[in-house]
Protein backbone atom coordinates (compact mmCIF):
# COMPACT_ATOMS: atom_id res chain seq x y z
CA UNK A 1 0.00 0.00 0.00
CA UNK A 2 2.84 2.29 0.86
CA UNK A 3 4.41 1.33 -2.42
CA UNK A 4 1.32 2.51 -4.27
CA UNK A 5 1.23 5.89 -2.51
CA UNK A 6 4.87 6.54 -2.88
CA UNK A 7 4.69 6.26 -6.63
CA UNK A 8 4.91 9.82 -8.06
CA UNK A 9 2.42 10.76 -10.75
CA UNK A 10 4.26 10.12 -13.93
CA UNK A 11 1.91 11.91 -16.30
CA UNK A 12 2.79 13.83 -19.44
CA UNK A 13 3.45 17.57 -18.94
CA UNK A 14 0.53 18.89 -21.02
CA UNK A 15 -1.83 16.54 -19.16
CA UNK A 16 -0.64 17.87 -15.81
CA UNK A 17 -1.09 21.51 -16.90
CA UNK A 18 -4.47 20.64 -18.38
CA UNK A 19 -5.44 19.02 -15.13
CA UNK A 20 -4.44 22.20 -13.19
CA UNK A 21 -6.52 24.30 -15.54
CA UNK A 22 -9.41 21.88 -15.06
CA UNK A 23 -9.19 22.16 -11.25
CA UNK A 24 -9.37 25.98 -11.50
CA UNK A 25 -12.18 25.82 -14.04
CA UNK A 26 -14.12 23.50 -11.74
CA UNK A 27 -13.58 25.88 -8.83
CA UNK A 28 -14.76 28.84 -10.95
CA UNK A 29 -17.82 26.98 -12.16
CA UNK A 30 -18.76 25.85 -8.69
CA UNK A 31 -18.19 29.37 -7.32
CA UNK A 32 -20.40 30.87 -10.01
CA UNK A 33 -23.13 28.35 -9.28
CA UNK A 34 -22.90 28.95 -5.54
CA UNK A 35 -23.05 32.70 -6.11
CA UNK A 36 -26.73 32.50 -7.03
CA UNK A 37 -28.05 31.15 -3.71
CA UNK A 38 -25.36 32.86 -1.59
CA UNK A 39 -25.14 36.39 -2.98
CA UNK A 40 -21.72 36.97 -1.42
CA UNK A 41 -18.75 36.56 -3.70
CA UNK A 42 -16.90 33.51 -2.37
CA UNK A 43 -13.46 32.41 -3.59
CA UNK A 44 -12.56 29.73 -1.02
CA UNK A 45 -12.72 27.02 -3.70
CA UNK A 46 -9.84 28.57 -5.61
CA UNK A 47 -7.15 27.89 -3.00
CA UNK A 48 -8.43 24.31 -2.91
CA UNK A 49 -8.01 24.02 -6.69
CA UNK A 50 -4.50 25.54 -6.42
CA UNK A 51 -3.51 23.16 -3.66
CA UNK A 52 -4.90 20.20 -5.63
CA UNK A 53 -3.01 21.30 -8.73
CA UNK A 54 0.24 21.69 -6.83
CA UNK A 55 -0.17 18.43 -5.00
CA UNK A 56 -1.18 16.22 -7.88
CA UNK A 57 0.32 17.92 -10.90
CA UNK A 58 3.49 19.56 -9.62
CA UNK A 59 4.86 23.02 -8.99
CA UNK A 60 4.57 24.38 -12.56
CA UNK A 61 0.88 23.50 -12.99
CA UNK A 62 0.41 24.92 -9.48
CA UNK A 63 1.72 28.31 -10.62
CA UNK A 64 -0.56 28.12 -13.66
CA UNK A 65 -3.50 27.50 -11.31
CA UNK A 66 -2.37 30.48 -9.19
CA UNK A 67 -2.30 32.81 -12.22
CA UNK A 68 -5.56 31.60 -13.73
CA UNK A 69 -7.20 31.68 -10.28
CA UNK A 70 -6.07 35.31 -9.69
CA UNK A 71 -7.38 36.37 -13.07
CA UNK A 72 -10.69 34.57 -12.47
CA UNK A 73 -11.11 36.16 -9.02
CA UNK A 74 -10.21 39.57 -10.42
CA UNK A 75 -12.67 39.19 -13.23
CA UNK A 76 -15.61 37.57 -11.50
CA UNK A 77 -15.47 38.25 -7.82
CA UNK A 78 -13.78 41.59 -7.23
CA UNK A 79 -15.88 44.63 -8.20
CA UNK A 80 -16.34 45.88 -10.71
CA UNK A 81 -17.46 42.43 -11.81
CA UNK A 82 -16.79 41.40 -15.38
CA UNK A 83 -13.60 43.49 -15.54
CA UNK A 84 -9.94 43.17 -14.51
CA UNK A 85 -9.91 46.60 -13.01
CA UNK A 86 -9.38 46.99 -9.27
CA UNK A 87 -10.86 49.69 -7.20
CA UNK A 88 -8.41 51.26 -4.79
CA UNK A 89 -10.49 50.08 -1.81
CA UNK A 90 -10.28 46.47 -2.94
CA UNK A 91 -6.51 46.39 -3.44
CA UNK A 92 -5.71 44.90 0.03
CA UNK A 93 -8.38 42.26 -0.55
CA UNK A 94 -6.93 41.41 -3.94
CA UNK A 95 -3.36 41.32 -2.60
CA UNK A 96 -4.44 39.08 0.26
CA UNK A 97 -5.86 36.59 -2.22
CA UNK A 98 -2.77 36.72 -4.43
CA UNK A 99 -0.56 36.24 -1.38
CA UNK A 100 -2.71 33.41 -0.05
CA UNK A 101 -2.71 31.63 -3.42
CA UNK A 102 1.03 32.03 -3.88
CA UNK A 103 1.73 30.94 -0.28
CA UNK A 104 -0.51 27.89 -0.62
CA UNK A 105 1.21 26.89 -3.80
CA UNK A 106 4.68 27.47 -2.40
CA UNK A 107 3.95 25.73 0.87
CA UNK A 108 2.41 22.66 -0.71
CA UNK A 109 4.97 22.35 -3.44
CA UNK A 110 7.68 22.54 -0.77
CA UNK A 111 5.88 19.94 1.30
CA UNK A 112 5.40 17.79 -1.77
CA UNK A 113 9.05 18.08 -2.59
CA UNK A 114 10.01 17.05 0.93
CA UNK A 115 7.69 14.13 0.77
CA UNK A 116 9.05 13.05 -2.58
CA UNK A 117 12.60 13.25 -1.30
CA UNK A 118 11.66 11.24 1.70
CA UNK A 119 9.99 8.66 -0.49
CA UNK A 120 12.98 8.45 -2.75
CA UNK A 121 15.27 8.07 0.21
CA UNK A 122 13.05 5.35 1.58
CA UNK A 123 12.90 3.62 -1.79
CA UNK A 124 16.61 3.69 -2.08
CA UNK A 125 16.98 2.40 1.42
CA UNK A 126 14.57 -0.38 0.68
CA UNK A 127 16.42 -1.22 -2.49
CA UNK A 128 19.68 -1.38 -0.57
CA UNK A 129 18.13 -3.48 2.13
CA UNK A 130 16.84 -5.83 -0.53
CA UNK A 131 20.25 -5.99 -2.16
CA UNK A 132 21.98 -6.63 1.13
CA UNK A 133 19.42 -9.26 2.04
CA UNK A 134 20.05 -11.02 -1.26
CA UNK A 135 23.79 -10.80 -0.69
CA UNK A 136 23.44 -12.19 2.80
CA UNK A 137 21.22 -14.95 1.53
CA UNK A 138 23.74 -16.04 -1.09
CA UNK A 139 26.59 -15.83 1.42
CA UNK A 140 24.56 -17.91 3.79
CA UNK A 141 23.89 -20.48 1.09
CA UNK A 142 27.58 -20.65 0.25
CA UNK A 143 28.34 -21.13 3.91
CA UNK A 144 25.78 -23.90 4.23
CA UNK A 145 27.24 -25.57 1.16
CA UNK A 146 30.72 -25.31 2.64
CA UNK A 147 29.53 -26.79 5.90
CA UNK A 148 27.91 -29.65 4.02
CA UNK A 149 31.12 -30.17 2.06
CA UNK A 150 33.16 -30.12 5.24
CA UNK A 151 30.87 -32.66 6.81
CA UNK A 152 31.24 -34.93 3.81
CA UNK A 153 35.02 -34.52 3.89
CA UNK A 154 35.09 -35.33 7.59
CA UNK A 155 33.04 -38.44 6.95
CA UNK A 156 35.29 -39.53 4.11
CA UNK A 157 38.28 -38.93 6.36
CA UNK A 158 36.73 -41.04 9.05
CA UNK A 159 36.08 -43.87 6.59
CA UNK A 160 39.65 -43.65 5.31
CA UNK A 161 41.03 -43.65 8.83
CA UNK A 162 39.00 -46.71 9.78
CA UNK A 163 40.12 -48.47 6.62
CA UNK A 164 43.75 -47.55 7.30
CA UNK A 165 43.52 -48.82 10.86
CA UNK A 166 42.08 -52.06 9.55
CA UNK A 167 44.85 -52.46 6.99
CA UNK A 168 47.51 -51.77 9.60
CA UNK A 169 45.89 -54.29 11.91
CA UNK A 170 45.71 -56.92 9.21
CA UNK A 171 49.29 -56.26 8.15
CA UNK A 172 50.51 -56.55 11.73
CA UNK A 173 48.53 -59.72 12.27
CA UNK A 174 49.80 -61.01 8.93
CA UNK A 175 53.42 -60.45 9.92
CA UNK A 176 52.81 -61.94 13.32
CA UNK A 177 51.12 -64.93 11.74
CA UNK A 178 54.02 -65.42 9.30
CA UNK A 179 56.57 -65.47 12.08
CA UNK A 180 54.44 -67.78 14.24
CA UNK A 181 53.98 -70.04 11.22
CA UNK A 182 57.75 -70.28 10.78
CA UNK A 183 58.33 -70.90 14.47
CA UNK A 184 55.83 -73.74 14.49
CA UNK A 185 56.76 -75.14 11.11
CA UNK A 186 60.42 -75.66 11.99
CA UNK A 187 59.86 -78.22 14.78
CA UNK A 188 57.09 -79.81 12.71
CA UNK A 189 59.54 -80.28 9.84
CA UNK A 190 61.89 -81.92 12.34
CA UNK A 191 59.09 -84.22 13.52
CA UNK A 192 58.32 -85.32 9.98
CA UNK A 193 61.99 -85.83 9.01
CA UNK A 194 62.71 -87.91 12.11
CA UNK A 195 59.50 -89.91 11.88
CA UNK A 196 60.34 -90.66 8.27
CA UNK A 197 63.82 -91.78 9.31
CA UNK A 198 62.36 -93.93 12.07
CA UNK A 199 60.01 -95.65 9.64
CA UNK A 200 62.90 -96.16 7.20
CA UNK A 201 65.11 -97.78 9.88
CA UNK A 202 62.26 -100.04 10.91
CA UNK A 203 61.57 -100.97 7.30
CA UNK A 204 65.03 -102.42 6.67
CA UNK A 205 65.38 -106.15 6.23
CA UNK A 206 67.00 -106.24 9.62
CA UNK A 207 65.44 -103.25 11.35
CA UNK A 208 67.92 -100.98 13.07
CA UNK A 209 66.16 -100.44 16.35
CA UNK A 210 68.86 -98.20 17.82
CA UNK A 211 68.61 -95.70 14.98
CA UNK A 212 64.83 -96.00 14.86
CA UNK A 213 64.59 -95.27 18.55
CA UNK A 214 66.90 -92.25 18.30
CA UNK A 215 64.85 -90.88 15.43
CA UNK A 216 61.60 -91.45 17.33
CA UNK A 217 63.04 -89.63 20.32
CA UNK A 218 64.05 -86.66 18.17
CA UNK A 219 60.56 -86.70 16.74
CA UNK A 220 59.15 -86.40 20.24
CA UNK A 221 61.56 -83.56 20.96
CA UNK A 222 60.37 -81.74 17.86
CA UNK A 223 56.74 -82.12 18.85
CA UNK A 224 57.52 -80.86 22.34
CA UNK A 225 59.32 -77.89 20.83
CA UNK A 226 56.28 -77.05 18.69
CA UNK A 227 54.00 -77.09 21.69
CA UNK A 228 56.50 -74.95 23.61
CA UNK A 229 56.32 -72.36 20.87
CA UNK A 230 52.57 -72.33 21.22
CA UNK A 231 52.78 -72.02 24.98
CA UNK A 232 55.13 -69.07 24.52
CA UNK A 233 52.67 -67.36 22.22
CA UNK A 234 49.88 -67.97 24.73
CA UNK A 235 51.86 -66.49 27.57
CA UNK A 236 52.67 -63.54 25.35
CA UNK A 237 48.95 -62.95 24.91
CA UNK A 238 48.36 -63.23 28.64
CA UNK A 239 51.31 -61.02 29.48
CA UNK A 240 49.91 -58.20 27.43
CA UNK A 241 46.68 -58.31 29.43
CA UNK A 242 48.08 -57.80 32.89
CA UNK A 243 46.43 -54.39 33.14
CA UNK A 244 43.52 -55.30 35.38
CA UNK A 245 41.50 -52.54 36.94
CA UNK A 246 37.95 -52.04 38.19
CA UNK A 247 35.84 -51.18 35.21
CA UNK A 248 32.19 -50.32 34.77
CA UNK A 249 30.96 -52.30 31.77
CA UNK A 250 28.11 -49.87 31.12
CA UNK A 251 30.60 -47.03 30.74
CA UNK A 252 32.69 -49.11 28.36
CA UNK A 253 29.58 -50.01 26.36
CA UNK A 254 28.56 -46.35 26.10
CA UNK A 255 32.04 -45.31 24.98
CA UNK A 256 32.14 -48.07 22.42
CA UNK A 257 28.71 -47.22 21.05
CA UNK A 258 30.00 -43.69 20.46
CA UNK A 259 32.91 -45.18 18.51
CA UNK A 260 30.65 -47.36 16.39
CA UNK A 261 27.97 -44.71 15.80
CA UNK A 262 29.49 -43.50 12.54
CA UNK A 263 29.74 -46.96 11.08
CA UNK A 264 26.19 -47.74 12.24
CA UNK A 265 24.62 -44.66 10.67
CA UNK A 266 26.45 -45.27 7.42
CA UNK A 267 24.88 -48.71 7.35
CA UNK A 268 21.41 -47.50 8.37
CA UNK A 269 21.66 -49.33 11.65
CA UNK A 270 20.06 -47.95 14.78
CA UNK A 271 21.71 -48.84 18.05
CA UNK A 272 19.52 -49.36 21.09
CA UNK A 273 20.93 -49.56 24.59
CA UNK A 274 19.29 -51.49 27.37
CA UNK A 275 21.66 -51.25 30.31
CA UNK A 276 20.99 -52.25 33.89
CA UNK A 277 21.67 -49.18 35.98
CA UNK A 278 23.26 -50.82 39.05
CA UNK A 279 25.57 -53.22 37.21
CA UNK A 280 28.47 -54.28 39.47
CA UNK A 281 32.03 -53.50 38.39
CA UNK A 282 34.30 -56.13 36.90
CA UNK A 283 38.06 -56.52 36.95
CA UNK A 284 39.60 -56.18 33.53
CA UNK A 285 41.53 -54.39 30.85
CA UNK A 286 39.29 -51.61 29.58
CA UNK A 287 40.94 -51.37 26.15
CA UNK A 288 40.65 -55.10 25.55
CA UNK A 289 37.03 -55.19 26.69
CA UNK A 290 36.30 -52.20 24.49
CA UNK A 291 37.88 -54.07 21.58
CA UNK A 292 35.70 -57.08 22.22
CA UNK A 293 32.50 -55.03 22.38
CA UNK A 294 33.46 -52.99 19.32
CA UNK A 295 34.30 -56.14 17.46
CA UNK A 296 30.98 -57.78 18.34
CA UNK A 297 29.11 -54.62 17.35
CA UNK A 298 30.91 -54.42 14.02
CA UNK A 299 30.07 -58.05 13.39
CA UNK A 300 26.43 -57.29 14.10
CA UNK A 301 26.42 -54.22 11.85
CA UNK A 302 27.99 -56.17 9.03
CA UNK A 303 25.61 -59.09 9.50
CA UNK A 304 22.76 -56.69 8.69
CA UNK A 305 24.25 -55.22 5.54
CA UNK A 306 22.09 -57.47 3.36
CA UNK A 307 18.88 -56.85 5.27
CA UNK A 308 16.30 -54.78 3.39
CA UNK A 309 12.93 -56.14 4.52
CA UNK A 310 13.11 -55.05 8.16
CA UNK A 311 14.72 -52.42 10.32
CA UNK A 312 18.40 -52.90 11.01
CA UNK A 313 18.64 -52.74 14.73
CA UNK A 314 21.48 -53.47 17.05
CA UNK A 315 20.45 -54.05 20.64
CA UNK A 316 23.18 -53.84 23.26
CA UNK A 317 22.13 -55.09 26.66
CA UNK A 318 23.80 -55.54 30.02
CA UNK A 319 22.34 -57.80 32.71
CA UNK A 320 23.22 -59.24 36.04
CA UNK A 321 23.38 -62.93 35.19
CA UNK A 322 23.60 -64.12 38.78
CA UNK A 323 25.26 -62.98 41.98
CA UNK A 324 28.77 -63.28 40.63
CA UNK A 325 28.43 -62.79 36.87
CA UNK A 326 27.41 -59.99 34.55
CA UNK A 327 26.31 -60.59 31.00
CA UNK A 328 26.52 -58.41 27.93
CA UNK A 329 24.67 -59.31 24.77
CA UNK A 330 24.81 -57.72 21.36
CA UNK A 331 21.86 -58.70 19.21
CA UNK A 332 21.37 -57.91 15.57
CA UNK A 333 18.45 -58.36 13.22
CA UNK A 334 20.72 -59.72 10.51
CA UNK A 335 20.71 -62.80 8.34
CA UNK A 336 21.72 -65.12 11.17
CA UNK A 337 24.11 -68.05 10.85
CA UNK A 338 23.31 -71.61 9.94
CA UNK A 339 24.39 -74.58 12.04
CA UNK A 340 27.40 -75.32 9.86
CA UNK A 341 28.77 -71.80 10.14
CA UNK A 342 27.89 -71.69 13.82
CA UNK A 343 30.12 -74.69 14.45
CA UNK A 344 33.09 -72.89 12.92
CA UNK A 345 32.31 -69.37 14.11
CA UNK A 346 35.17 -69.21 16.59
CA UNK A 347 37.72 -71.02 14.44
CA UNK A 348 40.73 -68.89 13.62
CA UNK A 349 40.84 -67.66 10.00
CA UNK A 350 37.23 -68.72 9.41
CA UNK A 351 35.32 -65.90 7.76
CA UNK A 352 32.22 -65.44 5.64
CA UNK A 353 33.26 -62.00 4.50
CA UNK A 354 35.31 -61.07 1.49
CA UNK A 355 37.67 -58.82 3.43
CA UNK A 356 37.51 -60.55 6.77
CA UNK A 357 40.53 -62.30 8.17
CA UNK A 358 38.55 -64.44 10.54
CA UNK A 359 40.38 -63.42 13.70
CA UNK A 360 37.81 -61.10 15.31
CA UNK A 361 35.73 -63.68 17.14
CA UNK A 362 38.58 -66.01 18.17
CA UNK A 363 40.53 -63.06 19.57
CA UNK A 364 37.41 -61.74 21.34
CA UNK A 365 36.78 -65.13 22.84
CA UNK A 366 40.36 -65.52 24.05
CA UNK A 367 40.22 -62.06 25.65
CA UNK A 368 36.97 -62.87 27.46
CA UNK A 369 38.31 -66.24 28.56
CA UNK A 370 41.48 -64.59 29.82
CA UNK A 371 39.15 -62.44 31.93
CA UNK A 372 37.55 -65.54 33.39
CA UNK A 373 34.41 -65.21 31.32
CA UNK A 374 32.67 -66.99 28.49
CA UNK A 375 31.74 -65.82 24.97
CA UNK A 376 29.20 -67.57 22.78
CA UNK A 377 26.72 -67.01 20.00
CA UNK A 378 23.07 -67.83 19.52
CA UNK A 379 21.39 -67.40 16.21
CA UNK A 380 18.16 -67.88 14.33
CA UNK A 381 18.54 -67.96 10.56
CA UNK A 382 16.92 -64.92 8.91
CA UNK A 383 16.12 -63.35 12.26
CA UNK A 384 19.43 -62.43 13.74
CA UNK A 385 22.31 -63.38 15.92
CA UNK A 386 23.09 -62.65 19.54
CA UNK A 387 26.71 -62.61 20.65
CA UNK A 388 26.93 -62.80 24.39
CA UNK A 389 29.59 -62.86 27.00
CA UNK A 390 29.75 -63.12 30.73
CA UNK A 391 32.38 -61.74 33.07
CA UNK A 392 32.82 -62.43 36.78
CA UNK A 393 31.96 -59.50 39.03
CA UNK A 394 34.49 -58.31 41.61
CA UNK A 395 32.88 -60.55 44.20
CA UNK A 396 32.64 -63.41 41.73
CA UNK A 397 36.32 -63.08 40.86
CA UNK A 398 37.28 -63.03 44.53
CA UNK A 399 35.59 -66.36 45.14
Amino acid at each position, binding site marked *: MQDKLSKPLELPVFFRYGMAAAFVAAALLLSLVLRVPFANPSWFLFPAAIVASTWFCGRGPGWLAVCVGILAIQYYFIPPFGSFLVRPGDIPYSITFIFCAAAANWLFSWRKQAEDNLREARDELELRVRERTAELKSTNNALLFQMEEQKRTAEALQVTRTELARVVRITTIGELAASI*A*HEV*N*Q*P*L*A*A*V*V*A*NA*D*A*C*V*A*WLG*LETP*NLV*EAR*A*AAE*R*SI*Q*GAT*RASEVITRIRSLINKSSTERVRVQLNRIIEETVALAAGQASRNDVSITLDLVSDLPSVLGDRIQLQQVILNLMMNGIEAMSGVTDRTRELLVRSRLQDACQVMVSIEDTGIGVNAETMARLFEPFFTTRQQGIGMGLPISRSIIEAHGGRLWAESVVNQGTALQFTLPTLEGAAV
Partner: protein
Amino acid sequence: MKERVPIVYVIDDEALIREGVQSLIKSVGLSAVTFASASEFMHAERPDVPACLVLDVRMPGQSGLDLQRQLASAGIYIPIIFISGHGDIPMSVRAMKEGALEFLTKPVRGQDLLDAIQKAIARDQELRSERAEYAKMRGRFDSLTPRETEVLNLVVAGLLNKQIADQLGTSELTIKTHRAHVMEKTGADSLAHLVRMAERLRTSQRK
Protein backbone atom coordinates in the same frame (compact mmCIF):
# COMPACT_ATOMS: atom_id res chain seq x y z
CA MET B 1 86.40 -96.34 -12.43
CA LYS B 2 86.32 -96.91 -8.70
CA GLU B 3 83.26 -95.31 -7.05
CA ARG B 4 83.38 -94.35 -3.44
CA VAL B 5 80.31 -93.96 -1.23
CA PRO B 6 78.48 -90.76 -2.19
CA ILE B 7 78.11 -88.03 0.45
CA VAL B 8 75.04 -85.92 1.08
CA TYR B 9 75.77 -82.56 2.69
CA VAL B 10 72.93 -81.24 4.81
CA ILE B 11 72.87 -77.57 5.85
CA ASP B 12 70.10 -76.46 8.20
CA ASP B 13 70.25 -74.22 11.26
CA GLU B 14 67.75 -76.45 13.03
CA ALA B 15 69.61 -79.28 14.79
CA LEU B 16 66.61 -81.63 14.98
CA ILE B 17 65.96 -81.29 11.28
CA ARG B 18 69.65 -81.91 10.48
CA GLU B 19 69.71 -85.03 12.58
CA GLY B 20 66.42 -86.29 11.18
CA VAL B 21 67.50 -85.79 7.59
CA GLN B 22 70.91 -87.32 8.31
CA SER B 23 69.30 -90.37 9.90
CA LEU B 24 66.91 -90.74 6.98
CA ILE B 25 69.81 -90.60 4.48
CA LYS B 26 71.88 -93.10 6.44
CA SER B 27 68.94 -95.51 6.52
CA VAL B 28 69.22 -95.92 2.74
CA GLY B 29 72.95 -96.54 2.94
CA LEU B 30 74.25 -93.16 1.94
CA SER B 31 76.59 -91.15 4.06
CA ALA B 32 75.48 -87.73 5.30
CA VAL B 33 77.48 -84.85 6.73
CA THR B 34 75.66 -82.01 8.42
CA PHE B 35 76.45 -78.33 8.89
CA ALA B 36 74.63 -75.67 10.89
CA SER B 37 75.52 -72.82 8.56
CA ALA B 38 76.73 -71.98 5.07
CA SER B 39 80.13 -70.79 6.25
CA GLU B 40 80.70 -73.98 8.22
CA PHE B 41 80.17 -75.88 4.98
CA MET B 42 82.48 -73.61 2.99
CA HIS B 43 85.29 -74.12 5.51
CA ALA B 44 84.94 -77.88 5.71
CA GLU B 45 87.09 -80.29 3.73
CA ARG B 46 85.14 -82.11 1.09
CA PRO B 47 86.36 -85.51 -0.14
CA ASP B 48 86.39 -86.10 -3.86
CA VAL B 49 83.33 -88.29 -4.13
CA PRO B 50 79.89 -87.92 -5.75
CA ALA B 51 77.81 -85.60 -3.59
CA CYS B 52 74.80 -83.36 -3.35
CA LEU B 53 73.67 -80.59 -1.07
CA VAL B 54 70.41 -80.42 0.90
CA LEU B 55 70.11 -76.72 1.70
CA ASP B 56 67.69 -74.76 3.86
CA VAL B 57 66.71 -71.45 2.24
CA ARG B 58 66.09 -69.48 5.40
CA MET B 59 69.04 -69.47 7.75
CA PRO B 60 70.57 -66.88 10.02
CA GLY B 61 73.63 -65.29 8.39
CA GLN B 62 74.17 -66.40 4.84
CA SER B 63 70.98 -67.67 3.25
CA GLY B 64 70.75 -70.78 1.09
CA LEU B 65 70.42 -68.69 -2.05
CA ASP B 66 73.56 -66.72 -1.12
CA LEU B 67 75.51 -69.93 -0.73
CA GLN B 68 74.29 -71.16 -4.09
CA ARG B 69 75.68 -68.06 -5.76
CA GLN B 70 78.93 -68.24 -3.84
CA LEU B 71 79.51 -71.84 -4.92
CA ALA B 72 78.78 -71.00 -8.53
CA SER B 73 81.21 -68.08 -8.56
CA ALA B 74 83.88 -70.24 -6.88
CA GLY B 75 83.46 -72.82 -9.66
CA ILE B 76 82.32 -75.50 -7.25
CA TYR B 77 79.72 -77.60 -8.93
CA ILE B 78 77.44 -79.59 -6.68
CA PRO B 79 73.74 -80.35 -7.27
CA ILE B 80 71.54 -78.49 -4.75
CA ILE B 81 68.20 -79.53 -3.30
CA PHE B 82 66.53 -76.55 -1.63
CA ILE B 83 64.21 -76.88 1.31
CA SER B 84 62.03 -73.92 2.16
CA GLY B 85 59.63 -73.17 5.01
CA HIS B 86 57.13 -71.75 2.61
CA GLY B 87 56.72 -72.34 -1.10
CA ASP B 88 57.58 -68.85 -2.20
CA ILE B 89 57.27 -68.93 -5.98
CA PRO B 90 59.66 -66.08 -6.92
CA MET B 91 62.26 -67.54 -4.60
CA SER B 92 61.98 -71.02 -6.04
CA VAL B 93 62.07 -69.66 -9.58
CA ARG B 94 65.29 -67.82 -8.74
CA ALA B 95 66.83 -70.90 -7.19
CA MET B 96 65.89 -73.13 -10.13
CA LYS B 97 67.17 -70.57 -12.64
CA GLU B 98 70.52 -70.59 -10.93
CA GLY B 99 70.72 -74.32 -11.30
CA ALA B 100 69.01 -75.82 -8.26
CA LEU B 101 67.95 -79.37 -8.92
CA GLU B 102 64.86 -79.42 -6.72
CA PHE B 103 62.87 -77.09 -4.49
CA LEU B 104 60.98 -78.84 -1.68
CA THR B 105 58.64 -77.38 0.95
CA LYS B 106 58.94 -78.06 4.66
CA PRO B 107 57.91 -80.36 6.15
CA VAL B 108 59.37 -82.56 3.41
CA ARG B 109 58.06 -86.06 2.84
CA GLY B 110 60.94 -88.48 3.43
CA GLN B 111 60.47 -90.31 0.15
CA ASP B 112 60.41 -87.07 -1.85
CA LEU B 113 63.69 -86.03 -0.28
CA LEU B 114 65.33 -89.41 -0.89
CA ASP B 115 64.16 -89.43 -4.52
CA ALA B 116 65.59 -85.98 -5.02
CA ILE B 117 68.85 -87.04 -3.38
CA GLN B 118 69.16 -90.12 -5.62
CA LYS B 119 68.54 -87.99 -8.66
CA ALA B 120 71.06 -85.40 -7.53
CA ILE B 121 73.77 -87.96 -6.87
CA ALA B 122 73.18 -89.67 -10.19
CA ARG B 123 73.50 -86.30 -11.86
CA ASP B 124 76.72 -85.57 -9.99
CA GLN B 125 78.16 -88.95 -10.90
CA GLU B 126 77.39 -88.35 -14.54
CA LEU B 127 79.04 -84.97 -14.47
CA ARG B 128 81.99 -86.26 -12.53
CA SER B 129 82.72 -89.04 -15.02
CA GLU B 130 82.38 -86.53 -17.83
CA ARG B 131 84.83 -84.30 -16.07
CA ALA B 132 87.21 -87.20 -15.37
CA GLU B 133 87.15 -88.28 -18.99
CA TYR B 134 87.83 -84.77 -20.05
CA ALA B 135 90.72 -84.45 -17.63
CA LYS B 136 92.23 -87.67 -18.92
CA MET B 137 91.99 -86.44 -22.48
CA ARG B 138 93.44 -83.10 -21.46
CA GLY B 139 96.40 -84.94 -19.88
CA ARG B 140 97.04 -86.94 -23.02
CA PHE B 141 97.08 -83.84 -25.17
CA ASP B 142 99.34 -82.07 -22.68
CA SER B 143 101.93 -84.87 -23.03
CA LEU B 144 102.61 -83.88 -26.64
CA THR B 145 105.91 -82.16 -27.41
CA PRO B 146 105.75 -78.58 -28.82
CA ARG B 147 106.62 -79.89 -32.27
CA GLU B 148 103.93 -82.56 -32.08
CA THR B 149 101.36 -79.93 -30.97
CA GLU B 150 102.31 -77.83 -34.01
CA VAL B 151 101.78 -80.81 -36.29
CA LEU B 152 98.51 -81.64 -34.53
CA ASN B 153 97.14 -78.14 -35.10
CA LEU B 154 97.97 -78.28 -38.80
CA VAL B 155 96.51 -81.78 -39.20
CA VAL B 156 93.31 -80.69 -37.52
CA ALA B 157 93.22 -77.64 -39.79
CA GLY B 158 92.97 -80.11 -42.72
CA LEU B 159 96.47 -79.85 -44.23
CA LEU B 160 98.13 -82.82 -45.99
CA ASN B 161 101.46 -84.18 -44.73
CA LYS B 162 103.28 -82.63 -47.69
CA GLN B 163 101.81 -79.20 -47.01
CA ILE B 164 102.68 -79.45 -43.31
CA ALA B 165 106.25 -80.46 -44.18
CA ASP B 166 106.56 -77.44 -46.49
CA GLN B 167 105.21 -75.10 -43.87
CA LEU B 168 107.45 -76.41 -41.09
CA GLY B 169 110.48 -76.67 -43.42
CA THR B 170 111.06 -80.37 -42.88
CA SER B 171 110.57 -83.66 -44.72
CA GLU B 172 107.28 -85.41 -45.22
CA LEU B 173 108.74 -88.49 -43.50
CA THR B 174 109.43 -86.56 -40.28
CA ILE B 175 105.86 -85.26 -40.27
CA LYS B 176 104.62 -88.82 -40.71
CA THR B 177 106.60 -89.88 -37.64
CA HIS B 178 105.28 -86.92 -35.55
CA ARG B 179 101.78 -87.66 -36.69
CA ALA B 180 102.06 -91.31 -35.64
CA HIS B 181 103.25 -90.16 -32.18
CA VAL B 182 100.31 -87.78 -31.90
CA MET B 183 97.84 -90.55 -32.76
CA GLU B 184 99.46 -92.89 -30.30
CA LYS B 185 99.77 -90.42 -27.39
CA THR B 186 96.21 -89.06 -27.66
CA GLY B 187 94.76 -92.53 -28.13
CA ALA B 188 92.90 -91.44 -31.25
CA ASP B 189 91.84 -94.42 -33.42
CA SER B 190 91.13 -92.32 -36.51
CA LEU B 191 91.70 -88.88 -37.89
CA ALA B 192 88.04 -88.06 -37.26
CA HIS B 193 88.41 -89.06 -33.59
CA LEU B 194 91.46 -86.85 -33.23
CA VAL B 195 89.68 -83.88 -34.78
CA ARG B 196 86.66 -84.37 -32.48
CA MET B 197 88.85 -84.48 -29.35
CA ALA B 198 90.88 -81.46 -30.39
CA GLU B 199 87.71 -79.55 -31.14
CA ARG B 200 86.24 -80.38 -27.74
CA LEU B 201 89.34 -79.19 -25.93
CA ARG B 202 89.41 -76.01 -27.92
CA THR B 203 85.76 -75.11 -27.21
CA SER B 204 86.07 -75.80 -23.49
CA GLN B 205 89.26 -73.73 -23.37
CA ARG B 206 87.48 -70.82 -24.95
CA LYS B 207 84.74 -70.91 -22.31
